[in-house]
């Protein structure tokens, strides 16, 4: 499995500011994903980060609020913009194990714990 790191591991931010979370993988991967994990709730997919094209967002998530970059096959960033306390959550990146096929699964980074005051 790939080794995935995220920065920062945690942060406390003020309302109205933005935070950019970085995700680095130790090998080239086709698919990278960003999830949100709120206390007591399921992991929710925010978007799929596509290398060389716009990210694909899930229902309820928009690019203006969660802009994503994917400059190469080992790196992606997620920005949480104009934050409010409701954005307090754990943000996780994940990668697919290979090219998209019926046998793919996902591996996760350690997460970024965000608290918005």
């Amino acid at each position: 499995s790939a080794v995935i790191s995220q920065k920062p591991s945690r942060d406390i931010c003020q309302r109205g500011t933005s935070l950019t979370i970085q995700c680095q993988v130790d090998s080239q991967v086709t698919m990278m994903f960003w999830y949100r994990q709120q206390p007591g709730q399921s992991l929710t997919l925010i978007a799929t980060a596509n290398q060389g094209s716009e990210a694909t967002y899930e229902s309820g998530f928009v690019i203006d609020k969660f802009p994503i970059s994917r400059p190469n096959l080992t790196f992606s960033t997620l920005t949480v913009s104009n934050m409010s306390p409701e954005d307090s959550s754990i943000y996780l990146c994940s990668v697919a194990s290979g090219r998209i096929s019926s046998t793919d699964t996902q591996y996760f980074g350690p997460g970024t714990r965000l608290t918005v005051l």
Partner: protein
Amino acid sequence: QKEVEQDPGPLSVPEGAIVSLNCTYSNSAFQYFMWYRQYSRKGPELLMYTYSSGNKEDGRFTAQVDKSSKYISLFIRDSQPSDSATYLCAMSEANDYKLSFGAGTTVTVRA
């Protein structure tokens, strides 16, 4: 109704007991079923990965899938305090990278 239902627990068992976890789902198109383990303040770690119905065993862990009942289980034999974590079930349709997760069950194994 959520697509994947998982009892959040918490579940507390003595060391050496069998831990039984389960999830139910509503989407009959799900073909791939996974269990992740998440320690406190860590990312989810893939434990088991199964396709369609049947059983899969890996050491102390056994995953079962019953597609006719839309029900999956994870059993942990001879549980250890190091097994204390939150266990998440996840599933996907064939040829689809999107995973649907349960909310997770928190397990504590008492020494």
